[in-house]
């Protein structure tokens, strides 16, 4: 079946290689379809406004310019909301990494009563719709005056993303041989130093996976962000109000916001994509 099969008779070889070409073409076309919405948005953001709303429109733009980007980056709102998103996402990632490193060690390398029960309860969270947590957390934050603050979103985000982190880190810790821990203990190394100084460098791939998964999830989170924060938007919520505000009359600016919003997570994805995919498949197959 494979083209490199030397023993195959010529006819079979010819047939399979032709099939490979056909499959290749189909997959490439499908990839084009998948990529198209993004490219179309990029193209739109680069068009002058007149080009988008022409009476006789064209598919390929006649001229490119960066007016839309200049507009959204110099305006007051967008950079502030971008900063909100960056701060909330990165601090959530840090706290999730720290907590799942600690918890993953306890769940993966230690034995204690109720261990499996605890792990089961934590993974159950993955299946429960987030909206069940939303109302009580909303009320709680109203009374603690945490709404419209960074912390008000960071705390629930950490809780919601911790299960994935624990899933990944527990799996990673259970691959570390117990002998390593024993020899470290004999050498007088405390457990905390063992986790943070010895295990952390070994677990870099798992940490990278947890980082990017948490980043992607928090960067896109909409339900909590739109309900809890009514003034201090994050980017997805700002985007919703931008759509409402522009009423379909400013697609070029919308496109620019889309491109700038995607950019950080796109770069992270391209750099860490293997960790992302490995972490996700681990989580999905076990969860």
């Amino acid at each position, binding site marked *: 079946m494979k083209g490199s099969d030397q023993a195959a008779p010529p006819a079979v070889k010819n047939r399979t290689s032709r099939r490979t070409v056909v499959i290749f073409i189909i997959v490439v076309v499908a990839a084009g379809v*998948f990529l198209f919405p993004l490219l179309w948005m990029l193209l739109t953001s680069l068009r002058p406004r007149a080009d988008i709303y022409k009476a006789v429109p064209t598919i390929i733009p006649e001229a490119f310019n960066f007016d839309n980007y200049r507009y959204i980056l110099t305006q007051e709102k967008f950079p502030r909301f971008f900063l909100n998103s960056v701060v909330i996402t990165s601090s959530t990632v840090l706290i999730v990494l720290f907590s799942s490193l600690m918890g993953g060690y306890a769940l993966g390398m230690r034995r204690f009563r109720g261990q499996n029960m605890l792990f089961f309860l934590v993974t159950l969270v993955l*299946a429960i719709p987030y*909206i069940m*947590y939303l*109302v009580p957390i909303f009320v709680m934050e109203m009374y603690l005056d945490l709404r419209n603050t960074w912390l008000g979103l960071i705390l629930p985000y950490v*809780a919601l993303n911790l299960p994935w982190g624990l899933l990944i880190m527990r799996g990673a810790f259970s691959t570390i041989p117990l002998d390593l821990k024993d020899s470290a203990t004999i050498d007088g190394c405390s457990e905390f130093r063992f986790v943070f100084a010895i295990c952390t460098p070994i677990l870099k791939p798992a940490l990278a996976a947890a980082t990017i998964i948490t980043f992607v999830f928090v960067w896109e989170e909409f339900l909590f962000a739109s309900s809890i924060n009514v003034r201090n938007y994050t980017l*997805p919520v700002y985007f919703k109000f931008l759509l409402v505000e522009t009423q379909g009359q400013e697609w070029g600016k919308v496109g620019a916001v889309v491109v700038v919003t995607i950019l950080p*997570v796109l770069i992270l994805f391209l750099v860490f994509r293997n960790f992302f995919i490995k972490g996700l*498949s681990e989580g999905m197959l076990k969860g």
Partner: protein
Amino acid sequence: MMFLSREGRVSVAKGRTAHGRFCQERTGSAMDEALAAQKHRMRARRRFRERRNLFLFLLPTLFFVVVFLAFPLLSSGYLSLTDVRANIFEPHKLIGLKGYYQTIVKDSFFHTAMRNQTIYAVSYFFLTFSCSLILAILINELRKGVEILQVIFYLPMIIPLSIVGGIFLWIFSGTGNGFYNLVLNHLGLGQSPPVNVYGDPRYALFGLVIARSWKMTGFTLIIFLAGLKGISKEVREAAQIDGASFRQELFRVVLPMLRPYLLIGVVWILINSMKEFDLPAVMTFGGPGTATLTLYYRAWSLAFEYWEMGKSAQVSYITALLILLVSWVFNRIFKPETAQRG
């Protein structure tokens, strides 16, 4: 902690004196006894330290799980059994399951949401499942350029859902030259006024399905490709040597072996379809009319538009039960062991 450690030391010391005197009379070696006692003391201290460390290691997890997951879960369970409205601290009555009864039997919005949800889940399932399975099988046949193709298919996964909504809103837009109408115009099928897919109750729900599928396909593709990679080449080659055609090989060998992975994919797609909130919230606000009112959106709008916390909690508990039911049915009834392992 200090108290505990002091107590531990005291009890150990007592043991030594009693035990030590007894031993001295018999063997006369106080040295050994002192050593044994010290060992014992050290072991007790180490055990205590291990316990304390375990607690400290679990502390962040426990804090977040208890305060932000377990407590909210229980309190919204309680809310769903009351007639609470906007302010959950004002006096209210426990009405038990009557609220659920009213929601399930009498609430016509809930009925619409259930109907939309079913249509949505079924069409979303077929589109996502077939797209990702076909793509996975085709990609698995290829040897060159696989990586870059995979990256392209995985790319939509990382696009924030509300942004996905905006992108598709623009493609199917009735204003400006949205691509859909642009193509229709070029084909001479253009209508005036231009078609607005998300403004039309007949198409809006399916428009959401397309947008969501675009994002989800990558996830299931990961699962299926992982499964296909696990099928050994020998098995497939054996089938080919036995003269199986590609179709036979696919349906008799590959798909049965892929079954546990297919199952996981199905469960993830169905669970995912129940959690539809972002797209209706960004694109259609549950409309036009109630055309894209999903269960999730209904639960949210009850809480944050109508300020009916009790009713909202009922809808979200029903959604959660449905999700657990779906994953339970698929995991237990079909193929119990393999589905768990993956």
